[in-house]
């Protein structure tokens, strides 16, 4: 699994390096450029958060592309590894990229804290944190982001395995429909069983408007049965993806 990950990283090294440089340039532009054109601190914080979200989406696309390339590649599929290793490598890849993104965001937050911008944001209501979880705040945010990413990635990997098993055109559209369907079913189940806990992708974060965002632990699923539910669903997604890779996915 780790060896597969090593070759995933080697294959994507230039894209990842380019992505990281682009993220840093975007953040610098927002921070420095925002001050030049007198955007409020609240606005700069929301823009930075949106930039992280955008790169989070790119991260998911990178993981999906890497997974798709691996399960279709004749060279990779000839190695004596079970299909679970391809799924595991993709999940580790997602975890690693999310951790790097979080690390950059963490440094950004440290800068905000040390320069007093964070306090200013809290006082002005630009950033509201309602944290009632048993987990300490910084650790809790890391866990919420990493788990939410992993959960979403298991669903996307299953969808990739389904689309790569199909032999007709329009597979991308079908994949999109499956993502919407699965997301809706999961949200409905969470609403029905747990009263709306963890109904979004990153359920704790909300951007209220262009200068206000909130983080509320009660909407995330890191505590209680919501997490167990997601764990079971993720295991089912992985099982189904492995079966499809074994039996149906077309190898080039």
């Amino acid at each position: 699994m780790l060896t597969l990950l090593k070759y995933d990283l080697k294959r994507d090294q230039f894209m990842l390096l380019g992505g990281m440089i682009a993220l840093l340039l975007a953040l610098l532009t927002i921070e420095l450029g925002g001050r030049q054109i007198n955007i409020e601190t609240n606005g700069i914080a929301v823009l930075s958060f949106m930039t992280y979200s955008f790169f989070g989406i790119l991260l998911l696309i990178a993981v999906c592309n890497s997974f798709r390339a691996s399960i279709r590649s004749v060279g990779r599929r000839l190695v004596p590894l079970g299909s679970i290793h391809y799924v595991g490598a993709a999940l580790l890849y997602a975890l690693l990229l999310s951790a790097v993104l979080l690390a950059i965001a963490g440094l950004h937050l440290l800068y905000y804290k040390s320069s007093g911008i964070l306090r200013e944001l809290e006082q002005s209501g630009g950033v509201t944190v309602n944290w009632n979880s048993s987990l300490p705040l910084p650790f809790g945010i890391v866990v919420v982001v990493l788990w939410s990413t992993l959960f979403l990635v298991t669903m996307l990997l299953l969808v990739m395995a389904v689309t790569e098993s199909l032999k007709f055109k329009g597979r991308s559209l079908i994949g999109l429909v499956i993502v919407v369907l699965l997301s809706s079913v999961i949200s409905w189940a969470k609403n029905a069983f747990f009263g709306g806990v963890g109904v979004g992708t990153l359920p704790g974060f909300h951007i209220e408007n262009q200068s206000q965002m909130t983080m509320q632990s009660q909407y995330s699923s890191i505590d209680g049965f919501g997490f167990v539910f997601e764990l079971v669903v993720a295991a089912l997604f992985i099982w189904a993806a492995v079966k499809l890779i074994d039996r149906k996915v077309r190898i080039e």
Partner: protein
Amino acid sequence: MTGSANREEAEVEQLLEFEAVSKKYGNKAALRDVSLSVGPGRIVGLLGSNGSGKTTLMRIAAGLDRPDSGTVRVLGHEPGRASKALISFMPDRPQFERWMTVGEALDFQRDFFADFDPDKSKRMLEFMKLSRGDKASSLSKGMQERLQLTLALSRRASLYLLDEPIGGVDPVARGHILDALVEFYEEDSSMIVSTHLIADIERIFDEVLMIKEGSLVLRQEVEQLRMDSGKSVDQLFKEVYAEC
């Protein structure tokens, strides 16, 4: 095949066994009820025209495709993780990734296969006139075939499956590839080589399997075939596939 040959075959553990294997792609039958076995220490030619089912047979043996019916065994294992560790398959298209250099493609084999032999790999690189620093996707077709063969034969596998190793390369490169096959083949292993370019390669075969429209139409020792028919394998091939 004679009765004594059958008994001998049963006594020796077979490296590869197909029993009534069939495979369809959509409505097209790629393999029809194919049964065969390959013992150790053999170089077997898998002969057939384009689209006859050679690649499908090899991909099923390599564990890349699943048969619709029938059973496949590689040293007693069903195709999967264990069989992949025993088989070295050279597909008919590049198995290395576009971003890799020759060295990285070899490192990939080394990292995943316990039977990878670094000394053999080094000797093969010299023999094939390949350099570790060359970008694999920038190599010419002939040099890519050499790299593919280097990747496959750098392992000390029980069974080598080579799908069209000389297809699409010029006669000089073809000669070089055939020399490499003979030079680096492990004598206690077996090798199945699929091709429709018989004349160049028939000298190295112990046995040939002819496949036509997904069915195995002939299986015989090359020497016996030549003695019985008074013809070369190439001539016989042209007769069998005359209307294809």
